[in-house]
């Protein structure tokens, strides 16, 4: 009993420590600057949408949001399209290459992003595609494809080989076996891989900061707010933080609903 109580208290403390800053940011995003900077923190205040209106009205935010959506959407799409079949092929058809490829893929993440960014700037400038969405998508594809392969391999390894063999003996082609058996069985784990990859690229700041000056993404814009001038616009910073954090949440929600529907449909 005492141990259970201790556990509950620990969880409550940890939850508070984790969630309170988020909650405070959320509250502050609805406060006027006067309510935010007051020395005595207020819990009761007149909520305002003004911060959000200001953030969304800022051209750089609109631009950054659109860029982020396009760049992350495309690189994640390409990452899934190439990474998921690659992971499957490694597990089923080229197991002897698996450990080497996995190490290679992981090694892509060893380098500090800034160190990669400088050669990329040179290459992209030579090709005349520097500071474009295209070059950013290209760069992010390295992350998305490699991360999805890295996390997709264990997802497909969980699929028992025999059920694929059973489907083969029922006359299904290799691709149909992948599509109708391996993929549906691996999908819960793959969803995790895709979510994780999305969060990595959505939050990516350093490469975007180095590779873009016109076609910046949302994290770059949000970072720029902190250096805006003498008077720190706390309300706007809080609102943009919430806006930045919102898509991953929504994304998870949508995926979860898709998952539920998917599993009910195949009943």
């Amino acid at each position: 009993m005492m141990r259970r109580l201790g556990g509950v208290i620990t969880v409550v403390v940890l939850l508070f420590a984790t969630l309170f800053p988020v909650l405070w940011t959320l509250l502050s995003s609805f406060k006027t600057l006067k309510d935010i900077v007051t020395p005595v923190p207020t819990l009761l205040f007149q909520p305002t949408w003004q911060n959000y209106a200001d953030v969304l009205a800022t051209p750089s935010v609109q631009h950054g949001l659109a860029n982020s959506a396009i760049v992350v959407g495309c690189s994640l799409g390409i990452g899934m399209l190439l990474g998921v079949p690659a992971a499957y092929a490694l597990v089923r058809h080229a197991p002897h290459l698996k450990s080497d490829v996995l190490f290679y893929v992981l090694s892509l993440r060893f380098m500090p992003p800034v160190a990669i960014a400088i050669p990329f700037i040179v290459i992209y400038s030579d090709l005349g595609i520097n500071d474009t969405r295209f070059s950013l998508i290209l760069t992010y594809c390295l992350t998305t494809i490699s991360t999805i392969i890295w996390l997709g391999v264990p997802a497909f390894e969980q699929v028992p080989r025999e059920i694929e063999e059973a489907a083969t003996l029922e006359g299904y082609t290799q691709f149909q076996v992948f599509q109708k058996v391996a993929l549906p069985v691996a999908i819960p784990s793959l969803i995790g891989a895709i979510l994780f990859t999305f969060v990595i690229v959505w939050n990516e700041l350093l490469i975007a900061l180095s590779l873009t000056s016109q076609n910046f993404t949302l994290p770059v814009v949000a970072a720029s707010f902190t250096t805006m001038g003498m008077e720190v616009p706390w309300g706007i910073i809080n609102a943009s933080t919430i806006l930045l954090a919102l898509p991953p949440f929504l994304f998870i929600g949508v995926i979860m609903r898709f998952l539920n529907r998917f599993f009910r449909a195949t009943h």
Partner: protein
Amino acid sequence: MATIDIEKFVKQYGPVRALHEVDLHIADGEFVVLLGPSGCGKSTMLRMIAGLEEISGGVLRINGKPMNAVPARDRDIAMVFQNYALYPHMTAYDNIAFGLRRLKVPKPEIDRRVRQTAELLALTAYLDRKPRQLSGGQQQRVAMGRAMIKTPQVFLFDEPLSNLDATLRDQLRVEVKKLHMLLRTTTVFVTHDQLEAMTLADKIVVMRDGHVEQIGTPREVYYAPASLFVARFIGTPAMNLLPMQVAPDGARLVADGLSIVLDPEQAAGVQAGQVVTLGIRPKDLRLAHLQPGAERHAATVMLSEMMGAETLMQVRVGATELLMLVDDRDTAATGSMIEIAFAPEGLRLFDAASGKAIVAGRASRAA
């Protein structure tokens, strides 16, 4: 309906040879059991027939047509796996219907056949359940339904009963047998359980280390094992195997305190002084009064285990310990002296060096 011809099957894993030029002919509608300890190559051979393993050497023919280059999905073979291998994301119904869906069979026809199959396997009540909501026995019945619904040319079973508890195993074994009697589909069944092999098979293929030790009916492998390996592997309780030597007169076998007369036919197969192993099933050791006219041997009862209708007695003749199976009513008390006889038709001789049966006598001719 199909015949299977296997010629000089070889399976090579790098430098390791898992199967050594195995030949096997399976007649249409025959139930063949590949039997052997783990690692003997029986599952590998099954998977080569299925097309799940590449054939390193030799030829596979089904109905006379070479199959080596035909991919698994075009061989029209159904397989039941040891771990059931059901599609976890589909219901029992969909698992069974999955193969027919590919063939674009009309929906009402699929439904009719799935329900008919389910009826046969007593699965009707479970069709809406996912595999994880089914017991092991139910899962394996679903797997059998999935295999039989498209009426394949050949059924393959890869140790399908090993993961089930004893009672279920007995029940399903009977169902497998009944299904085969009903459908008469050519079947290859892999197991390491000799009882399963004996009860199911038309023909048993005993395998060891990638070689075939013996091919024969259950009676042949039981009564006339071709080698010491088969003799040890088949039968519970195990066959008595006694190291002996042929006496100088060539008509008797002798060992420490034990001397057994050979019938002339068997004596003809051995030479004086030859070292042999004598095999005799516990059932073929009789109490002397039940085997009139036979040579009698004085024995001491060391231990007797009542096994129901029969009792297994451990007896000692001279320095040799023997197991004998007698009717429970004939049991003698531990420590008592009895007289026993070796039923002449039960004597099997093996060359001690090669382990091969020495061919002579009636039963060997049957093999």
